[in-house]
């Protein structure tokens, strides 16, 4: 068994070296396709992170009556925190709201100062797990006696949700389509490399080599192509991401090293995986005759 594996590896390495042009072509195809695939994945990761941060911005704002007692407000806060749709509940007091207004609109300080008392209401700012829950939470707040009114941004939220969904689904669809194209192109290149050695396979069959002896060297060779292609791709990706990542810094999310590691693993896995599966399938068509 060990002798068999050693034999297969030796033959795979020989095959890779001796069929230089085909090996280079297959590896180059593998690199180009993996770069395409991983760049797309990096872009989609950035897109998803952006969409997520936009979603997190969605807040339900409930203005409280001035008459509402403090105990009622904290009861409401507690019950809101217990709602599964809610991630965070923030309280902005009247004074805070006044200060916020002053800092935000320094030109209108005179106007607000001319009023007899603080016109700004206290408010609760509720962050949602999912923007779609906006309606539920808003309805719950409206029924509370302490709440004067709920800021109505339903239309904006609906539009945003629609756009985000289109972008997300579109991204996944494009990734799948490109992934399939990449798969076909790589498998085809490997198939060409195997076809160019049909003579060798025929001789093996004629002298009575078992299917395993014919198949595994080719499968290992596919793994070598995949591994080499993946390593080159990863080598290319690091300078590329280093070049691009400053532009991602504006995002409020961490789209840097962690993503890089995931992508590297995916590239490695898919490179070796496609190499192995492609060779297996290509040789298979020569065995079952």
């Amino acid at each position: 068994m060990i002798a068999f594996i050693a034999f297969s590896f030796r033959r795979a390495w020989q095959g890779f070296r001796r069929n230089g042009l085909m090996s280079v072509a297959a590896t180059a195809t593998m690199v180009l396709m993996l770069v395409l695939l991983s760049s797309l994945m990096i872009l989609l990761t950035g897109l998803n992170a952006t969409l997520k941060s936009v979603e997190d911005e969605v807040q339900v704002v409930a203005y409280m009556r001035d008459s509402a007692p403090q105990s009622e407000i904290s009861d409401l806060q507690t019950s809101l925190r217990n709602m599964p749709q809610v991630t965070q509940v923030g309280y902005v007091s009247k004074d805070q709201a006044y200060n916020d207004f002053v800092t935000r609109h320094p030109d209108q300080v005179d106007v607000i100062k001319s009023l007899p008392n603080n016109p700004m209401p206290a408010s609760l700012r509720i962050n949602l797990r999912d923007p779609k829950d906006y309606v539920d939470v808003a309805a719950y707040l409206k029924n509370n006696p302490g709440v004067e009114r709920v800021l109505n941004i339903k239309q904006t939220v609906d539009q945003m949700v629609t756009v985000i969904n289109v972008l997300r689904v579109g991204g996944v669809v494009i990734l799948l389509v490109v992934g399939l194209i990449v798969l076909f192109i790589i498998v085809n290149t490997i198939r060409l490399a195997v076809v160019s050695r049909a003579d060798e396979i025929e001789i093996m069959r004629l002298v009575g080599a078992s299917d395993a002896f014919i198949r595994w060297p080719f499968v290992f060779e596919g793994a070598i192509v995949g591994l080499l292609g993946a390593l080159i791709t990863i080598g290319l990706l690091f300078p590329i991401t280093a070049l691009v990542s400053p532009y991602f810094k504006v995002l409020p999310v961490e789209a840097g090293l962690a993503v890089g590691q995931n992508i590297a693993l995916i590239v490695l896995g898919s490179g070796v995986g496609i190499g192995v599966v492609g060779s297996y399938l290509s040789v298979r068509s020569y065995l079952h005759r």
Partner: protein
Amino acid sequence: MAPSGSNPSQIRDSDPPAETAPDPKPLGAMDTAEKPAQSARQARPVARAVKRPAMGTAKPAARPEERVTNRVVLAMQGVTKSYPNGRVALRGVDLIIPEGDFVFLVGPSGAGKSTVIKLVIRDELATKGSVLLDGRDLGKLKRRDVPKIRRKIGIVFQDFKLLPSKSVRDNVAFALEVIGTPRREITPAVDRALRVVGLTGQADQLPSQLSGGEQQRTAIARALVHNPRLFIADEPTGNLDPLISWEIIQLLLRINEMGVTVLMATHNAEVVTAVRKRVVALEDGRIVRDQVAAAYEREG
């Protein structure tokens, strides 16, 4: 050519390539497997020597002494082969090849020679009838046992089918490597095969550096290196000029004298007529002639 030594192993000993001492697997294994048949094999060449002058039309069935005394390497019984496109390549073919025989398979193109060979190496299956190689029914063989039965066969073709990137030695060794022969057994077996075909000096050259005859010798060495029960040559001289063809035939005859059964498909009438071995003639999928020590065409 006349079988002077009646014991095949003696012939091997006297032959330069024989070298019986460090010979772990191939020939040794064959000998032990055939202990019971040993005496029969000793008797065989004598029987043939007696038969040869009586140049006749004897069919296999009419040679009871050989059927009884020899193991049968190949037996085809009532074999019909029709291809999916409707073409019928063989119609009720009966062919028995005893061990040690040398058989020419002749006939015009499309007569069914290639189909016979494809059936013997189990590249195709018979539509009707049975093909037995070394006692195994190829029609009932499991798929995973096909490689094992192929190891009983050595085959060479008109186009040599050598791997251009491998040296002569590596081409021959390849046949053993891919069937999982341990490395220590490969080198002596390859050396022996190369000595039989007389290519020891060219062992490290590439096929492109060899003449056509030398390339075919390399292919023959590769087909012999695992000590097959049946050696098949499919138009081995088709790409060679007459002089070189004759050398190849001499080599095949010598291999036959070493005890290997040979089945050779050919168009080469000159060679067939000169050698005077058993001739099986196919025409339109039927055996129209099966003669010992025959000419290419029917005489008289």
